[in-house]
């Protein structure tokens, strides 16, 4: 994998299959995520965003390639490193940036923040903060698909650190035992906060854990959006047609720290630079230009467009109002009245 990860262009067979138009589209999606997050990082530095903020920079190929292999009716769920998945699955840049700034116009009305983005209508079910805990929830979506014979598929993303949580294993067993149409995608960026894979997992070929549940396991270069698309596509097909789950290990890398507050002292500059050579955006760019599927000018224009969208989202978010204090009792129960004053502390708090 390491070899392939350093490759200069996307896998050529996968690229042939993917085709010009989709690869052009994928690059634009990756650029949007990249520029949006670079903007978010600046807003964070400027103090306009607070709390935990986990950037996806470097891993864009995984979400873009994988989601590119799904249909609109399919379900998607991931952990707290969710900006990328959200932006290409139902959340607008404005909605996400406003959410990061805790505004009423945010995609979660300012209730969830960076870690809890959702777009229920579009089948993007979050945005979750407890490592590994959303994996059984994904199995629940798969169960619902089987229950309704609806033919839709669930993509569940999680980091390699989540693989050590019992919920991961329990869910794989249920998915295989019951035949649930779920694709489990482990985004192996080799670090869980400051802990490298080898200090957390007894084995390093994580995709082989699928064997313990009689499930298909695949490994793919997550920095290669075309390869990611192809491997996920096969798994989605397996889920939709045969009701069989798959575990995909997508090897990738995050170029930034774990969150905005992490100096990432646990890895060398050399290691990071080496991995930057396989930046998914660079790979896609090289592939498009080499094949004359896009000119550098076009790509620069896409880049400008992405930056413009990011800038617009920031303006929108800054101008947006904070949530109304009167709504503090909403969204706890279906009926806001279920939130009884006498279950709270002092009434004056709501004056």
């Amino acid at each position, binding site marked *: 994998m390491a070899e392939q990860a350093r490759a200069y262009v996307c896998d050529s067979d996968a690229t042939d299959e993917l085709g010009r138009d989709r690869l052009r589209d994928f690059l634009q999606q990756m650029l949007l995520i990249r520029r949006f997050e670079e903007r978010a990082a600046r807003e964070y530095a400027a103090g306009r965003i607070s709390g935990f903020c986990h950037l996806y920079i470097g891993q864009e190929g995984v979400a873009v390639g994988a989601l590119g292999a799904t249909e609109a009716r399919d*379900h998607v769920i991931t952990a707290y490193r969710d900006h990328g998945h959200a932006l290409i699955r139902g959340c607008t840049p404005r909605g996400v940036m406003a959410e990061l700034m805790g505004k009423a116009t*945010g*995609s*979660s*009305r*300012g*209730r*969830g923040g960076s870690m*809890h983005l*959702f*777009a*229920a209508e579009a089948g993007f*079910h*979050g*945005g*979750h*903060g*407890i490592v590994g*805990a*959303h*994996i*059984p*929830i*994904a*199995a*629940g*979506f*798969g*169960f*619902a698909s*089987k*229950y309704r014979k609806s033919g839709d598929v669930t993509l569940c993303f999680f980091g390699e650190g989540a693989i050590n949580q*019992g*919920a991961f294993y*329990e*869910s794989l*067993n*249920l998915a295989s*035992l019951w035949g649930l149409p779920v694709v489990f995608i482990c985004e192996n960026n080799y670090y869980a906060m400051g802990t490298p894979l080898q200090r957390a997992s007894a084995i390093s070929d994580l995709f082989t854990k699928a064997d313990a549940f009689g499930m298909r396991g695949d490994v793919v270069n997550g920095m290669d959006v075309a390869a990611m698309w192809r491997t996920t596509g096969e798994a989605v097909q397996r889920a939709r047609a045969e009701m069989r789950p798959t575990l995909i290990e997508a090897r990738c890398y995050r170029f930034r720290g774990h969150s905005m507050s992490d100096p990432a002292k646990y890895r060398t500059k050399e290691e990071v630079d080496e991995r930057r050579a396989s930046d998914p955006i660079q790979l896609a760019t090289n592939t498009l230009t080499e094949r004359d599927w896009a000119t550098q000018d076009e790509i620069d224009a896409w880049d400008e467009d992405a930056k413009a969208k990011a800038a617009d989202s920031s303006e929108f978010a800054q101008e947006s109002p904070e949530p109304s204090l009167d709504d503090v009792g*909403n*969204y*706890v*129960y*279906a*009926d806001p009245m*279920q*939130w*009884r004053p*006498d*279950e709270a502390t002092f009434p004056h708090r709501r004056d």
Partner: protein
Amino acid sequence: MAELSFREALNQALDEEMARDERVFLMGEEVGYYDGAYKVSQGLLAKYGALRVVDTPITELSFAGVGVGAAMVGLRPVIEMMTFNFAILALDQIFNHAAKMRLMSGGQYSVPMVFRGPNGAAHMLSAQHSQATENWFCNVPGLKVVMPSIPNDGKGLLKAAIRDEDPVIFLESEIMYNMKGPVSDAEDYVIPLGQCDVKRQGKDVTVISYSKGIHHALGAAEALAGEGVSVEVIDLMTLRPLDMETIRRSVKKTGRVVTVEESWPYGGIGAELAYRIQMDCFDWLDAPVTRVTQLDVPMPYAENLEALVLPNVRDVVAAINAVTYRS
């Protein structure tokens, strides 16, 4: 009114709701082919099939999560915990996911599901299998908590819980499944959540309880009636949210309150009731609100110790005597 056991009443509720709404399914350990560890789901597999009555491996955390996911996309799961002692393994899905999904998403999701099963001590099962877990759930906003004391309420409340748009923790008493009682024959008998029921009218003392404790309360009321003490017994039925109106009305009448619960005292239901009552009815109280609870120890196995640790009618009588200054 048909005479049914708690088990049968709950089974009817499940059966009727599954027949009424095909989004409703039952999932848990041994609920299907075994007909339920306590036979509450008897016959449901045969009637509704393996897709709607789902046996799970022993994996509480994850099948609870499967329920949360299924509820998020529109199904109405009823997740059976073989006993709530095992639900402790699933608390992350209940506290951090079922209870918070609506809020975290800014109202994009409802999590209409029920976590149900036996709770509290049965007989000589020792510390890990005898816990009354209601306190923990009552503390968490986003959850509703329901605990019926008689078969009739069990049926009406479970049907309401299944239809509720929010996650409901429905706790059944592990040793009351065989208890019989009259159950409404109404076509579609539903008891709304969030309301107390006055199980016995009285004027001297208010005893507030739920589930098993109601029977200790009624026993004490009966015993003291002879001695001229008129006891009002309020059945919370829904522990969260609490119906304080009914409670206040009673307390302002009697001025004396005893609470009865099987859980541990610290931060228990009695503590919460005491807080609210002394806050709302301070000038009406003639004696401190007095609680009867399980002793503050993990449940021992030995029969005599277990009997000592659990609350009983004698304890309630003693508490009533205390608040009426008869002791």
